């Protein structure tokens, strides 16, 4: 078992990498703009229930989404707008789910971050943290049964989510079956308000890799360069049969747990620490410095993102609300086996 602490690998040619970087950056911008819009819709009372954003985590998330390809499995979590978009989720799916459109993939039955399209490899999360990991394992097991080689499955979790029994059982299961699972931990210092000191006592979560017999990677989660390279490496290793990969990124959540939360519990020192820097800013600086793009282009991309999001919101706002009389109120696919409870 090799236990790499920082293992960035190589991502082909320099120009290829630049293209990936630009693509990733634009994905991050789109996710940020989408998140900002969702926040403003929330403040305007247009969203039912909570809103959970990925601000500050876009670099890591987008890298996960971009490192995957068609046929792979992705089970994102609450802060993965960027990864979802990169994997192929549409802005429309996101907005429809948040705004409760019956035309969205969840048909207003579930909302906000609980969305996906299993048939397209995008698994919709249940709320119970850690519960998606073994589901991804099962999908990978199915691929193995079906002789569908070379696919991988990625899923994301927070630092707090590592305390769940589900995390343990599933990572261990993946290790025993040597599944091509990429488990990405966003260690953002807090689980809701709870600091990591109340969540675990090891020095670095990546130290858990050895105890499962899986590969460990750790990285700065607000450095897009590191994220792209590390995820690329991890995914390639999983794809080539080297078993599960545990990726642990250090970063900071630059928003509340949900939009209802002012996160006043965050230690102000984190905000000025290196990992508290906004990954979008870090990437922008890198782009400009490398002369991969000019300020003007950044501006244009941002405006394009805004337009894309505004268009989606405009569409969804014209869509009908769900009609309870059109629901069949049946949880089974075998309709004939469902019980009709007539109302008295």
């Amino acid at each position, binding site marked *: 078992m090799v236990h790499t602490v920082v293992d960035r690998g190589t991502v082909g040619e320099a120009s290829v990498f630049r293209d990936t970087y630009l693509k990733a950056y634009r994905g991050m911008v789109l996710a940020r703009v989408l998140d900002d819009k969702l926040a403003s819709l929330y403040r305007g009372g247009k969203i039912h229930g909570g809103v959970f954003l990925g601000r500050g985590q876009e670099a890591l998330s987008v890298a996960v989404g971009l490192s995957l390809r068609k046929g792979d499995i992705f089970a994102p979590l609450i802060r993965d707008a960027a990864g979802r978009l990169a994997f192929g989720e549409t802005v429309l799916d996101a907005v429809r789910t948040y705004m409760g459109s019956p035309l969205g993939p969840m048909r*207003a039955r579930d909302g906000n971050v609980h969305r996906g399209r299993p048939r397209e490899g995008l698994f919709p999360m249940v*709320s119970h943290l850690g519960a998606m990991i073994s589901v991804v394992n099962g999908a990978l097991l199915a691929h193995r049964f079906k002789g569908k080689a070379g696919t991988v499955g990625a899923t994301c979790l927070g630092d707090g989510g590592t305390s769940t029994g589900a995390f343990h059982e599933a990572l261990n299961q993946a290790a025993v079956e040597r599944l091509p699972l990429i488990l990405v931990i966003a260690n953002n210092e807090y689980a*809701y308000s709870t600091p990591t000191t109340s969540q675990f006592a090891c020095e670095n979560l990546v130290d858990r890799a050895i105890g499962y017999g899986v590969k460990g990677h750790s990285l700065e989660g607000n450095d897009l360069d590191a994220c792209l390279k590390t995820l690329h490496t991890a995914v390639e290793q999983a794809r080539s049969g080297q078993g599960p990969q545990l990726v642990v990124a250090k970063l900071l959540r630059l928003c509340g747990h949900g939009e209802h939360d002012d996160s006043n519990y965050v230690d102000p020192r984190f905000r000025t620490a290196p990992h508290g820097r906004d990954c979008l800013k870090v990437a922008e600086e890198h782009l400009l410095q490398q002369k991969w793009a000019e300020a003007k282009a950044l501006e244009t991309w941002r405006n394009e993102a805004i337009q894309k999001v505004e268009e989606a919101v405009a569409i969804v706002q014209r869509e009908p609300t769900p009609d309870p009389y059109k*629901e069949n109120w049946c949880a089974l696919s075998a309709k004939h086996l469902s019980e009709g409870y007539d109302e008295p």
Partner: protein
Amino acid sequence: MSITYLEAIREAQAKALADDPRVYIYGQDVGAFGGAFKATKNLAKEFPGRVLDAPISEDAMVGSAIGAAIEGMRPIIEMQFADFSTIGFNQIVNQAASLFWRTNVTCPITIRLPGGGTSGGGPFHSQSLEAIYAHFPGLIVMTPATVEDAYSMLLEAVAIDDPVIFFEHKYLYYHLKAEKLPTEAMPTGKARIARAGRDMTIVAYSAMVHEALAVAEELATEGTEVEVVDLRSVKPLDTDTIMASVARTGRLLCVGESWPWGGVTAEVVARVSTEGFDLLDAPPQRLNAKDTPVPYHPNLWAAHRPTARSIAAAARNLLRL
């Protein structure tokens, strides 16, 4: 001064902590943050070292409460949502519930479960799980419907030597207010006649009590007097009070926010039919949430759970039977 259902829960915990050094609180974000719903606001400051943040480990949260109870403590466990208690399920129904019966050593733990639906809550933040806990021997399941009961029953939960599953209804947290906290209370195990009436009995609990009361109000204008029984606890279930009410009215409608199969309404109707068959002038009726997960969108949610409107319709039907 006025106090909400949520504040009553906070106050009860403050009093329990103040009165009994054996009490402590353990749950996710319950410390400095004061809990996801602020049910433990300021308690960590007021009672240093006795309100502890837990890792996201519901199984270990409950397990540790059991061990602490064996050694003489009286823990209060807050689950962030009732829905997440499924992760602590094994420790609750197998270890906590059976401890006294197996060993003669009591297990005085209180597990606070913010349950029930709210608009936009969705399938995993809305569940009403009282039935699955009530099914297991060795547990007490409380479902307070009023600010006063939220306060006094939580105090009683902490005082009881057996494990108590305490369902707080999230919809009532802010919606429900009272003038002041009670100084006296009915004992656990006693249902309350929330409104007297002679024409039919509606048995309800938790948030549904208020829907039932609204129906009683509405039907009163039509000359029908509905008696509303607030179960307060679903285990024990106060069959005597229900039966006495049905004896007066001859008609029973039982309403629950949880799913139909084997829910509180099944148990109530089964008891009244088996033990009070002759009291019934019409078939007993029940109304539950629909047999699907709880939907996210308010339009769907409102149609999924019983409301004053659907209860009133059921009540009118029952009167015609």
